[in-house]
């Protein structure tokens, strides 16, 4: 089951994610991203150390975050496991967002 918790600290918004992000859970992730967009943070941190799976439906959320929240906002993926990070890289999105292997919030 997918779970996402929103944490705001200064100009940074962190979404702590766990479970599976697929077509079933993607709408709730998208809803959370819409909430983030209203806060206009300078940095969005996607803490994925608890995320076990991501499909293209989840990657679409990352594209949305990158495109809709402005060029001034940095999007960082932290703590993704090897398979999740590889899936994101397969789409070429690693050139638009920062992917860090270890969690350091």
């Amino acid at each position, binding site marked *: 089951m997918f779970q996402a918790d929103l944490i705001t600290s200064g100009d940074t918004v962190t979404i702590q994610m766990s479970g599976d992000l*697929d*077509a079933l859970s993607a709408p709730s992730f998208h809803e959370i991203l819409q909430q983030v967009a209203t806060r206009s943070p300078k940095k969005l941190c996607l803490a994925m150390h608890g995320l076990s799976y991501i499909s*293209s439906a989840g*990657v679409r959320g990352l594209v949305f975050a*990158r*495109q809709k929240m402005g060029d001034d906002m940095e999007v960082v993926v932290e703590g993704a496991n090897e398979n999740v990070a590889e899936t994101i890289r397969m789409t*070429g*999105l690693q050139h638009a967002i920062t992917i860090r292997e270890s969690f350091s919030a």
Partner: protein
Amino acid sequence: MPATVASLVAVAEFIGGAVAVAGLGDKDAYRLRLAVDELITNVITHGYPPASAGEIELHSSVSDGWVLFLIVDFGTEFDPTSGHRPIPVVDPDDLPVGGFGLSLARMSADRLIYERVGGLNRTIVVVRRSGRDLVAHDDRRPPWMS
């Protein structure tokens, strides 16, 4: 099973069972799930008219070191193996919000076979034990980065 996203939970459990019997490692299991998940999601999203009661069948054949899944649907004729739909290498602002799914399925599966039989779409996915990465992507650095 019903052609709805709620069925993806059962699909994941079904795949997990096959993976255990075949003795696939973590990377191969992930590739298998990604391929089957994306193909089934595509049928759910595009195969049937909205709000219709479409059905999808999922069959497996498992042996030591490999898994074969047969996905059968009764929806619109569609060959997921036809044409090349590479993920475009473009500026991130121009990335399409959709269209990744079938590309991910093709890169993840070791074999992908499609046939149209008697009004049915039959798609076969094979993943073997290899431990390979999903795909080499070093050569997909977009022009705007150079």
